[in-house]
């Protein structure tokens, strides 16, 4: 995704995506460094660190929905303010056997939607004004069903737990080396003399960084699986995988312009001169980017939805 050509008016977005990835990465590195420094400076043991980790995870779990909504500039809307959207979500929620979530609107042209909240009973779905304008009703419905599936699947909780464990892993790794030195013939005790201590610290730092990098990749991989699961759920709720597939392609086209996978709106005869230049698609360098991305590529998601559609129709003819 990161190396794709984008139209000029979206160019800054490319940088933004890269910056966000870098920010998340650095945030985590800083976090590990911070915990490590705490441990080093104050000789805090493993149990207090675990408690700190639990406290941070709890804060994350209980406030991240509010933080997410506030940072996106999402404004909760009443039934009177957005009757159509409320009606659509109420219908889908009833079908999915969910209490109707609260609904928020973000005022931006970028087509996007997200779900947040601790549980089924305390969930919010936020949609942008852009997605409501760009998607036909059946495709908007498919996107909302995707977000509802995130709520059903408790993805907020799953991802919080996953991040929590990644935090714990890095703590364990640090402590293993910290105390491991002690087990290995009292080397740790002698580390009060500067040379030996430096060596242990460097190993500990390296280990925690490696643990962090590994968990960063793993958490993102997990996130991609949750997305595919939500796609599947959405297809099941709406009974039409192609509605979501079409929405994904349309959104991809709007966000990435020519580099996206959109279905053209230009007539074949008028596009013909342009067409000649596009016979071979631009080189794609998605492999590395996809390793670090929280969402699978549109191509992969569409391919899976197509497969679902195929299976559905096959079952229909065989049954």
């Amino acid at each position, binding site marked *: 995704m990161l190396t794709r050509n984008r139209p000029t008016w979206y160019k800054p977005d490319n940088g933004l995506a890269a910056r966000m990835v870098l920010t998340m990465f650095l945030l985590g590195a800083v976090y590990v460094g911070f915990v490590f420094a705490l441990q080093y400076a104050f000789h805090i043991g493993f149990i207090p660190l675990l408690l700190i980790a639990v406290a941070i995870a709890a804060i994350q779990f209980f406030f991240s929905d509010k933080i997410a909504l506030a940072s996106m500039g999402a404004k909760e809307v009443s039934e009177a303010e957005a009757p159509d959207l409320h009606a659509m979500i109420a219908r889908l929620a009833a079908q999915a056997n969910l209490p109707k979530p609260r609904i928020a609107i973000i005022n931006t042209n970028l087509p996007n939607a997200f779900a947040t909240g601790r549980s089924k009973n305390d969930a919010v779905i936020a949609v942008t004004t852009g997605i409501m304008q760009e998607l*036909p009703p059946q495709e908007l419905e498919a996107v909302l069903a995707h977000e509802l599936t995130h709520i059903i699947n408790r993805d907020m909780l799953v991802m919080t737990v996953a991040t929590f464990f990644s935090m714990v892993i890095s703590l364990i790794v640090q402590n293993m080396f910290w105390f491991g030195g002690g087990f290995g013939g009292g080397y740790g005790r002698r580390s009060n003399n500067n040379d030996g201590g430096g060596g242990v610290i460097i190993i500990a730092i390296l280990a925690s960084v490696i643990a962090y990098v590994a968990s960063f990749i793993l958490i993102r991989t997990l996130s991609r699986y949750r997305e595919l699961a939500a796609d599947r759920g959405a297809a099941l709720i709406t009974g039409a995988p192609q509605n979501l597939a079409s929405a994904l*392609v*349309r959104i991809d086209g709007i966000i990435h312009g020519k580099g996206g996978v959109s279905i053209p709106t230009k007539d074949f*005869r008028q596009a013909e001169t342009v067409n000649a230049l596009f016979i*071979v698609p631009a*080189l794609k360098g998605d492999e590395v980017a996809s390793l670090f991305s929280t969402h699978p590529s549109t191509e992969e998601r569409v391919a899976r939805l197509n497969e679902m559609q195929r299976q559905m129709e096959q079952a229909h*003819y065989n049954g």
Partner: protein
Amino acid sequence: MGFFDALFGRRKPVPVGPERLFAMSTAQVALESEQRLEPTGSAGICFRGIESGPFGLLQADLEQLLKIAGKDEQVTMKSFEDELKYRWFVFTSSDFQALVATIHIVSQTLIEKGYDTQLLFAIFAFKNADGKPIYWIYNYKRGTFYPFVPQTDSHDKTRQRNNPEEMRLATVMDKELPVEKDFQFWYPVWDLQL
């Protein structure tokens, strides 16, 4: 397309192929029985304008050809230029197999006469159970078919198309037809006169 071809901007000439058109004659069974798409009896070939002199000769040749080929099946031909200055041959027949064969032989003739680069697409018209039009468009340069499902009427200038239905059709017809996998080639064709 290798890395160096991309680097140096080399592009292999694209072979123009009408051969895969024949996939439509077998696919029609599945289209009709499983998807309830019925051929309307019309199909067309669209190509870039050819000067009137050579075109007159070409048209006479093709009419002669149809007369010989269509002794058993009745295929009628009309030709016109659309608002975008593209030439059309539109064929009508109640026999779908004859229609596919005609599209193929006319495409072949155009290619033999050196109009291969002018050929744009072939199109087959169907209607679904509700009587709404659905088209399958054949891209000669890529040798692939893709569905085109207009959502709005022809006089409606908002020109909405039913992308989910197109994606569904492409998916379920994947085995019977060489379906275009790259969505960016799914060009619509509006103001159809067939």
